């Protein structure tokens, strides 16, 4: 059930009609038109992804070569090496730490809640669900002003813990929202059987429902990690020096350290590496998470 690609085939037509003839819509088209489409797709891929590829190639260019027009060059790791000297590694570590911490916390608190919301029909359930959706919608600036003032008062400003707590504002909503869809896929009769055998509600959850949703749990964790990792706004405001995260460090390169494009491009490449890696690994579930709340499935 896990990490195959998201070609939506599952909903498709019976295998007999698709395997050798293609979908009916395509069958009607002549051979040439079909290939015109593939060529168009390739050209669009190149066009739309070229800004992204340009950043990556810039990271490997020798610094002296950066304003040259040549497309071919001898790649170097100078840009990456120069990152080792400064504080960038520390901010990279902070990003890892804060994302992991926030992901762990939101799973710990959110997964049982998602289970309860799936299995327990109580009055006001709709309102709770709606509230959780709205927290995903709220503009971050509405939270940052109170958090900024409160964190100063509580001494949580510029700490990894403080930032991880703030990330719960969006991560908890993601966990509760997504895990509900995974728990719904587990038939309740399995747990009912366990209850008859004398299991408590949470024993049934721990021994039956949770293991069955393990792939979904992993995907949810990845999404939480990505959302925390990608955050810029909260980190910009709530950190200064100690807990600074990698995205904020990149902006500091842009603003304070002149225009060392190779170094800047190398830092950008490093920061997007985990995210692009995860995308390839769990794209199917990623898609479900990215469209959460927008699609009924």
């Amino acid at each position, binding site marked *: 059930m896990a990490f195959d690609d*998201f070609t*939506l085939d599952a909903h498709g037509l019976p295998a007999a009609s698709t395997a050798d003839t293609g*979908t*009916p819509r395509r069958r009607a088209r002549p051979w040439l038109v079909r290939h015109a*489409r593939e060529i168009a*797709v*390739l050209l669009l*891929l190149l066009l739309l*992804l070229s*800004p*992204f590829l*340009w*950043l990556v190639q810039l990271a490997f260019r020798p610094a002296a070569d950066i*304003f040259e027009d040549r497309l071919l060059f001898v790649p170097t790791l100078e840009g990456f090496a120069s990152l080792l000297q400064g504080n960038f590694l520390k901010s990279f570590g902070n990003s890892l730490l804060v994302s992991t911490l926030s992901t762990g916390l939101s799973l710990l608190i*959110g997964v049982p*809640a998602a289970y*309860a*919301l*799936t299995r*327990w029909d*109580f009055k006001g*359930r709709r309102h709770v*669900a*709606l*509230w959780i959706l*709205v*927290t995903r*919608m*709220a503009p*971050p*600036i*509405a939270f940052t*002003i*109170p958090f900024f003032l*409160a964190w100063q008062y509580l001494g949580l400003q510029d700490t990894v813990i403080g930032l991880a*707590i703030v990330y719960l*504002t969006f991560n*908890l909503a993601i966990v509760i*929202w997504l895990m509900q869809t995974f728990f719904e896929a587990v038939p309740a009769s399995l747990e009912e059987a366990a209850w008859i055998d004398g299991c408590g509600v949470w024993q049934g*959850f721990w021994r039956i429902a949770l293991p069955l949703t393990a792939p979904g749990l992993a995907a949810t964790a990845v999404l939480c990690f990505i959302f925390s990792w*990608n955050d*810029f*706004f909260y980190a*910009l405001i709530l950190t200064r020096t100690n807990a600074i995260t990698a*995205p904020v460090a*990149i*902006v500091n390169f842009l603003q304070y350290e002149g225009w060392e*494009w190779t170094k800047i491009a190398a830092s*950008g490449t490093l920061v*997007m590496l985990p*995210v692009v890696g995860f*995308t*390839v690994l769990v794209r199917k579930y*990623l898609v479900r998470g*990215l*469209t*959460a*709340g*927008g*699609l009924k499935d």
Partner: protein
Amino acid sequence: MSLAARAGGWQQQRARAYRRGLAPSLAVLLLITLVPAAALLVASFTPLTLTDPAASFRFDDPLVNYRQLLHDERFIASIVVQLKLSASSVLLQLLTGLGLALLLDGRSRLLAGARTAFLIPMVLPPIVVALIWKILYTPDVSPLHRLLEAAGWPVRSLIANPDTALWAIAAADTWQWFPFTMLMVLAALQTIPDEPLEAARLDGANRWQLFRHIVLAYIRPVLVVCGLFRLIDSFKAFPLIYVLTNGGPGNVSEVTNFYGFIQAFNFSYWGYASAIATVMLAGVFFLSWLVGRLGWSDHGVR
């Protein structure tokens, strides 16, 4: 009798167990979303600033900030900029996303691979997206500017020019978010049954007619929801503006979110910034309510 009583006891026991599972999340959400929202609302009624902390609990003129907002030309201008940016980029995203989804809806390895590759802009850290476009708009290192120059058509940096700065940001924003519409439309296309298409084709409908009368009818609700989702999210656009133009040149690319950020964290007018954030929050609530009215928000709640 005793059996029924025992069953009732089990029901209560279950409800208690579920409540225990739900309580921590609700408590945390209360603490980190509702309490700050309430604090924001309270702060918006005070003239709270860094220079005058004693004013934090003065409520003698609670509506002063909101009255000032009405006369603040920079605030009004920021709303206009926001509307221009949101409308243009959401519209472009919908068109690009829809076009690509129609193009990529098929079953070959190439199309499946392209569907994944086109996700990249959306999952990239927003700051990296901003970096990519900063490079693209900086004549020294930009392939775009080099091409134009080679063609004998040198242009100024688009983000330094007040006439084009906002549209340059809209282009970058469109690039970042077209995959969202693409994904949603691709999913919706899968739900279209084959019968009406077959029937229309037998009746001699051409491809444009098929799209216009059948496909579009099926995916219209998804497009509406997509538009609303993206509209809500577009109010949060920050890294692109912060890195590309910093609200400038002048104030031409200063959206409401960015203006609130400046008032709070550059000028430390927290009371005033809270009022701006409250207005934004109200706008988001209204749009969320609209999404809810369209019946799409009860995902997972039946």
